[in-house]
Every structure is written in structure tokens, then in C-alpha cells.
């Protein structure tokens, strides 16, 4: 990635987080990955203390989001990110176990950029994450605007 893009990984399952990180690294992506295991901490980080999201002005972010979180729903985080003036351009990759058609549709309607179902089969899982890593290495991410 040309820009120093920070990957925000919101994933409550630490095992999943570890597997995702490992496989992203294996695809040769060395960007900073900041992991969060719950929605509240992630929202605090994204929107800052004042809740405006101004903190990340000028930074390039990419959000990797799980929908099933213990405290808040991933959908809710997605909606708030896409509603925020500063964060709405940030690409959001939904990576979750749900393959329910309603859920997928809803996420895209809310502005999610990519929706990936976690396959249980590890070959497929590792493969999907590596592909995603390759995808990360080529896409252009806008900077959070003022």
C-alpha cells in the first residue's frame, strides 16, 4: 500500500483476529493493524472523545468489521461510520460468519464496501483472507477529510 493505511480490525473473537492477522501478513501486507475486541472500544477510538471523528482527520483508514459483537451490533457501527462526515469515505469490509441474504443486503444498503463470509473450512478461510490482503495492497484509500 502506497499510503500508510491503518487497518482497524473490530473482531470480538481473539482467535479469529489472530488468524486474520496472520493471513493478512502472509499475503505481504505490513500495514499497522489495530485490533478491537468490542464495539465500544472501537467506536471510542474511531470517533474520539468528542464523538466527532475529527481525530482521524487526514489519516487513511480501512475498517475490518465483524457483525456479531458482544456489546454493539456491527451493523450499528457500520451505520455510524457511514453517517459520519469524516469517516464515511473509509472503506468498510464486513467479515462475518453470517451468510444470511437479508443481512448482506442490509450491509450493502448501509454503505459497506465488501462483504465476506468467514468459511469454516480453513483452506477457504485462509485463502479468502489472503485475497483480501492482496486486495488491500492494491486499493486506494482516501484520507479522512475535514
Amino acid at each position, binding site marked *: 500500500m502506497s499510503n500508510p493505511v491503518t487497518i482497524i480490525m473490530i473482531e470480538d*473473537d481473539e*482467535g*479469529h483476529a489472530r*488468524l486474520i492477522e*496472520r493471513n493478512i501478513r502472509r499475503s505481504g501486507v505490513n500495514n499497522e493493524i489495530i485490533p478491537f475486541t468490542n464495539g465500544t472500544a472501537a467506536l471510542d477510538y474511531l470517533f474520539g472523545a468528542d464523538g466527532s471523528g475529527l481525530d482521524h482527520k487526514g489519516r487513511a483508514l480501512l475498517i475490518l468489521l465483524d457483525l*456479531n459483537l458482544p456489546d454493539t451490533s456491527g451493523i450499528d457501527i457500520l451505520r455510524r461510520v457511514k453517517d459520519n462526515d469524516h469517516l464515511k469515505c473509509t472503506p468498510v469490509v464486513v467479515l462475518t*460468519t*453470517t451468510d*444470511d441474504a437479508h443481512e448482506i443486503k442490509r450491509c450493502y444498503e448501509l454503505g459497506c464496501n465488501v462483504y465476506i463470509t*468467514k*468459511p*469454516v*473450512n*480453513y*483452506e477457504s*478461510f*485462509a485463502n479468502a483472507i489472503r485475497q483480501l490482503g492482496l486486495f488491500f495492497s492494491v486499493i486506494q484509500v482516501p484520507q479522512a477529510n475535514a
Partner: protein
Amino acid sequence: MTVERARERALVQIALLTVAFAVLVAVSIASVYWLAKAREDSAWVAHTLEVENQISLAQLQMRRAESAERGFLLTRQPEFTTDYEEAAAQIMPLLTLLRSLVQDNASQSAAIAEIIALTESRLDQFRRVMTLASQSKQDEANAIIRGGAGRETMNKIRDLAAEMRQEEHRLFLLRTAAADRSQSLASIVTTTGSGLVLVLAGVSIFLVRRSARARDDAEAQLRDNNVNLETTVDERTADLREANEEIQRFAYIVSHDLRSPLVNIMGFTSELEELRTDIFRRIATLSRAASPQALDASLDDQGQPLLDEADRQLSQDFTEALAFIKSSIAKMDRLISAILNLTREGRREFQPVPIDTRELIENIVSTMAHQAAEAAAEIRIEPLPEIVSDRLALEQIFSNLIDNALKYLKPGVPGDITVRGRQRLGFAIFEIADNGRGIDPKDHQRIFDLFRRAGTQDKPGQGIGLAHVRALVRRLGGTMSVASELGKGSTFTITLPTKWTATKPETRA
């Protein structure tokens, strides 16, 4: 009220009506009888009067004849002869009539016989006097009259007539009394009978009205009960639906959440597998370093480092353990997917549409032609009733059942699968019969349970098909059952409402 009481009441009512009817009949018969009796008695009274009348008439004619005779003797005028002849001619017919009238009474009959005899002799005297008088033998005629025989006879006749009249008078009194009694009896019977009938009719009307009121009450109660029942059923149905939805949600969430840890288990198992190669390479290197007399570092066919016997055993055990873990995970994943699919199916809204069942099944059969050909099976479709139901659900039901029939045929026996249908009382009954290996009766319930299967486990499957089919049939308002014996084929029977309407009043929570 209890059933027994109601029955008792009905019996009493019937008994009352029967009694009333019997009384009515009895009263009618009695009235008719007594009226007839009264009429008869009156006839007898009239008869008595007539007899008396006849006696008087006969006596009158006798007197007339006597006076005509006397008149003729005194005056010799021929008018008296005519008078006499007229009177004498009427006497005998009157007496004969009288005899016939009183022939039922022995004493009167005897009296009349005597009277007739006396009258004849008296008439004979008259004739003799009249003949003598007409021959102008006045003295002889006077002598006969003076002889007094005529008067004596007349007195006898008069006495006898008086006796007869007396007798008739006695009879008259008796008969009048009898007629009076009959008449008053008839009127009493009629009056009492009418009264009784009126009373019974009143009682009956009262009873009928009471039972009508009881029936109305019962009807009202029944209506209330029905309404209550409907409300209760609605409530229960709502509860059940809620419970069912709860279970669905639960199953969905559970199966969903089970997936996350499974991803980890699978992932790290795979990671371990990766590590295995590295670990055993290191073991090989280390053991070689520890024993310098060992062979130089060489690789086997698969590019794995060569290990000594004990280490190779370890490596194999490691691989085996990992293989078991992975196959179990794969199985668990399939089960979870199956539950997810089932719950997803349970959440799908059904759309009732008219379905040509035969066409639908023909389509299913054509997609299974390959399997059927492999199993050397023939699928026959008999005429089927058309129904209104959910198309996709019906497709799943029939394709599952036909697929099962094809799957569990007897090896070496050409399959014969029949799909039959008929209609009864608003329900369509479908039967899928095969000549396959059959199902042990003790497993008939089990096969409908999720993840449960019966018989030899030589075919792939999760034990989901029939559970799914039964869930669908139930959601379509139907029932299903199986009839089967080991080695004798199976028949699955599905009963579905001919016209299914999606009766889901409110949307899911």
C-alpha cells in the same frame, strides 16, 4: 344439567304424551260407546211408546166397531154397517203389528196372543149380530147381546190391554232411566276426558316450553363455549407460534454462534498441521545431531525428513489425531449448516398458489432420471389431486421422499416407486410407495427426528431430510406418517389441506 337428567325428562315427556294420547283414545271410545248406548235406549223408549199407542189404537177400533154394531141394531141405518166394516178391518192388522212389536217380550207376547184370540171371537160375535140384524132377526141379535158374552170378552180384552199397558209403562220407566243414565254417563265421560286431555296438554306445553328453554340455554352456553374455545385456541396457537419462533431464533443464534469457535478450531488445527512439518523436521535434525553415527541428512519420497522408528510413530499419531479433529469439525460444520438451513426454511414465508401436483412431481422425477436409471428404478405417477399450497415446500417434500425412495432400494432388485393421490373431505392424501429395503417399525418415529437415521448406514446423509419434510408438512397444515416393514418397502403418506391459506395473522416479531 346432566345428560341423565335430560334423558329422564325426555322420557317423562314421552310418557305424558303417550298417556294423554291413550286417554284421548279411551275417552273417544267411551263417548262413542255411551252415545250409541243412549241412542239405543231412546229407541227402546220410543218403541215402548209405540206399543202403547198401538194398544190404544186397537182398543179404539174395537170400541168403534162395537158402537157401530149398536148403532146399526138401533137405527138400521146402512152408514153404521160401513163404519163397522171399516173399524173391523183395521183391528186385525193393528194387532198383528202389535204382536210383531212385542215379540221380544215373552209375557207381552202371551198377552197379545190371548187378546188376538179374544178379539177374533168378539169379531165373530159382531159378525153374527150384524148378519142377524141385516136379515131383520132383531130379537136373535138382541138375545146375543143380552147374553153378555160380548161384554165379557170386551172386559177381558180391556183387562189384558191394561195389563200390557202397565207392563209397557214399567218398561218405559226402566228404559227412560237407562237412557238418562247413558246420556249423563256419555256427557260425564266426554267432559272428564276433555278436561283430562286439557290438563295433559297443559302439562305437555309446560314441559315442551321448559325443554325449549333448556335447549336455548344450552345453545347459548354452547355458543359461549365455542367462542371461549376459539379464543383459547387462538391464544394457545399464538403461544405455540411464539414458542416455535423462539425455538427458531434460538436454533439460529446457537448454530450461528457455534460457527465462530469452529472457525478457530479449524483454523488453529490447520495451523498446527503446518507446524507439524516444522516440528518433526527439527526433531529429525536434533536426533541426528545427538547421534553422529546416523545417516546423513536425507529426505524421503515426500520431501519429509527421515525419522527413526519412535519418532515416525509419533508423527503418524499426530497426523491421525489432526485428521480426526478435522473430520469431526467438518461433520459439525455440516450439522450446523443443516440447522441453519432448517431455521432459515422455517423463517421463509409460504405463498399459497394453485399447483398442478402431477406436473410438479413429473418435474422432480425428470431431474432424478439419472439416479433412477442408476438404481434401475421405475417411478410411476398415478393421477393426483390439484391443491393450493406453497410450491417450493411441496417440491422439497416430494423430492426428499422420492430421493429417499431411490436411495434406500433393495440392492439387486429393480426399484418400483409409485406416487398416488386421492381426495377426502377437504384434504389431499398423497402416498409415495416403494419396494425398497423398508424400515423397522421400532424406527418409525425415530426417522422423523433431526439427525436420526435407521437401518444400515451405508448411504451418505445427515438425517435431516425427513425431519425437514415433516416440519414443512406441518407448516402447511398437514400430517405425515409411514407404513413399512423391514424388507417389504415403505409407504409414506402425506395429508395436506386441499386449499391451504397462509393463516399467519401477525408478522413475526
